[in-house]
């Protein structure tokens, strides 16, 4: 038993380094996608203290809007533009109809409101788009398909062009987002709201504008995530469950930290894949990915309740 836990996995890694590289690559791709979803949560939480339960359904809604518009005969890239428009309108409507009337209410009320948004978008989306699985317009968007096969250590490493594109686009999106938050007036306003609501409002930052902005950015992230996941296994309401993969990422990285979302996503993506392949499948019969990330996050919470990068809140009584 001790051999199976402490020696055999590492021997496997050493004797088949090409396979280890494949596992790490798959983990990296998953991790970046987890990080993307988590970013959507973090942005909204930072600016409004709302845990946005609707992030998963926003991914579905964005992807369905894209393929739905394309199916209506709209060219692919114009469909992307129009989908961004749809996400913007959604952000405005959510701010006006749901959030604005609830300003000043306890956090749990706002959280419940996002559950309401989720249920509404499920019903609304199913009415408009139907529940059938749809094919993502990968080729029409010019996203490369096919693969590159490498032979490191006389082995085999398959890199899907789609995955490479996802890694590049997601990285650029994250870098762009960081630049926006750090070097633009609006970005700094979002951060200011995250740091201190009252102070930010007192210097004239508009809560409504910022909320629309962050929900729209979350919509952009949802669209990119939807394209990436949809290209892998089709676009359907099943995509919604992917959002749950972001929960342990948030627990691990901290709800307020963009760095935490990125590092947490990558850590969980890579570690859960390594654990599943080298320990989970041989020793536990597999399917450890359903719980590994949560256990990892819980262990971190035992030592850092605010997550790896979250801010420690000290309340004096």
């Amino acid at each position, binding site marked *: 038993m001790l051999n199976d836990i402490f020696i055999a996995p590492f021997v496997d890694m050493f004797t088949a380094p090409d396979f280890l590289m*494949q596992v790490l690559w798959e983990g990296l791709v998953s991790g970046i996608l987890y990080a993307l979803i988590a970013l959507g949560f973090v942005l909204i939480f930072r600016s409004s203290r709302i845990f946005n339960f609707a992030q998963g359904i926003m991914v579905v809604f964005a992807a369905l809007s894209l393929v739905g518009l394309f199916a209506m005969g709209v060219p692919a890239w114009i469909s992307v533009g129009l989908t961004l428009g749809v996400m913007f309108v959604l952000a405005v409507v959510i701010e006006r109809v749901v959030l604005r009337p609830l300003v000043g209410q306890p956090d749990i009320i706002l959280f419940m409101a996002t559950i309401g948004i989720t249920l509404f978008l499920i019903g609304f989306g199913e009415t408009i788009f139907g529940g059938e*699985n749809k094919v993502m317009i990968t080729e029409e968007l010019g996203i490369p398909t096919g693969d590159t096969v490498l032979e490191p250590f006389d082995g085999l490493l398959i890199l899907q062009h789609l995955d490479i594109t996802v890694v590049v686009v997601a990285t650029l999106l994250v870098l762009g987002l960081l630049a926006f938050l750090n070097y633009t007036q609006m970005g700094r306003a979002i951060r200011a709201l995250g740091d201190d609501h009252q102070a930010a409002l007192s210097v004239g930052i508009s809560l409504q504008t910022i909320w629309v902005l962050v929900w729209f950015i979350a919509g952009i992230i949802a669209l990119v995530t939807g394209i990436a996941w949809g290209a892998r296994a089709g676009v359907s309401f099943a995509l919604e*469950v992917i959002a749950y993969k972001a929960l342990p990422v948030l627990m691990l990285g901290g709800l307020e930290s963009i760095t935490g979302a990125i590092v947490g996503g990558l850590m969980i993506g890579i570690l859960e894949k390594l654990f599943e392949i080298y320990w989970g499948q041989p020793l536990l019969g597999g399917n450890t990915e359903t719980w590994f990330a949560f256990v990892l996050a819980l262990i971190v919470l035992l030592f850092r309740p605010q997550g790896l990068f979250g801010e420690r809140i000290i309340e004096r009584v």
Partner: protein
Amino acid sequence: MKHFTKLAAAAALGTVLGTAAVAQELYTPNLAYRTGPFAATGIPLMNGQADYMTLLNERDGGIGGAKIDFEECETGYSTEKGVECYEKTKGKAIVTQPWSTGITLQVLPKTNVDQIPILAPGYGFSPMADGKVFQWAFNVPSGYWDAADMIVQYLEQDGSLEGKKIAFLHLDHPYGKEPLPLLEKLAGEKGFELLPIPVGLKEMQNQSAQWLQIRRERPDNVVMWGWGAMNAGAITEAVKTKYPMENFIGVWWAGHDADLKLVGDDGKGYKSISWSFPNPDAPVMKELKERVFDAGLSQSNAEEMQGVFYGRGVVMSMILSEAIQGAQKNFGTAEIDASQLRWGLENLNITEERLAELGMAGMVPPFSTSCANHTGHSGGWMLEWDGSKFVKASDLLTPNTAGYSDLIGSAASEYATANAPWAVNEECSATN
């Protein structure tokens, strides 16, 4: 006062007529799932089922003069919601169609008490084949153990399975685990190594870990018990990892056209065992198009109607309508009740001739049921994806039920013991 008397008389007459109208209905609820993560596979099946019943209502005025009330109760494939739907509909239902093995397992003990037949075509708990023990449950025309046996038989056509490795990629759910007892038995008998690989509900669309395991273990074949988004996820991963498609076989719920269209030509060679076959040229399909689809009474679309799942939905409703018709004839009434429908389901005799009369020749193999045999064990065909549609890749395969009748019997008695007191059909002997 005169007005009041007239009003009362009219109300009384209305009540009588209304009651008569309701009595002429056959309430056959369907615990459908057109929403949620499994909707993509549910919708074409539900459409096929509903459209056939609409056709009977429109063309024949129902069955035997009684209109069919084919109400859907939405479960989203959730077991909890399924149980709620069962409780909500059981009052006047003459049958329950639970969909999902999880819901079937939950309502199975309830139906034995409530005395409502379960109709679970091609799904549910495999030991339901034992009609003496499961007197109210029917998984016609073939069960999961039949499917597993036929897949193993098909693989054996290329030579002995001794020393081979077969990966069993399955949804980590009661449905996915259902064939495991038989596959384990067959692995022992035939000498192949069985490698179960579960896929969690949240991992359906990202199965890279499972397919990395397949790449590492290099199984000779992959057998899939997938559902919903899991099928598309597995097929795209198989393409990605360059697993030979001709060695990849799914159960009948993993043979959905829309899942394969995601990969198109890359999926060529993928197979799926199936007890139904779509035949867009069959007379019934033409009637469905003319009387239901063109009349705007269908939720389906032209492309979906060509597919395997829509055709299977049509066959499912045909099975139910045949059972109703048989019961009506036997009991001499259009207004059959649940116990009379049970008789109908227990005395199904779907022959080639009858299928031809129904305009469904070749859409399902002939089969019959009895009080002891609630599955029918029709067998099925191995279908193969040719890049744009499923085509037949084998003659009719029939399950070797004698090889696992003991397993059915023992699993059925174990279930009855665990759920004691469990009413069995004492009048039924194994030879009935």
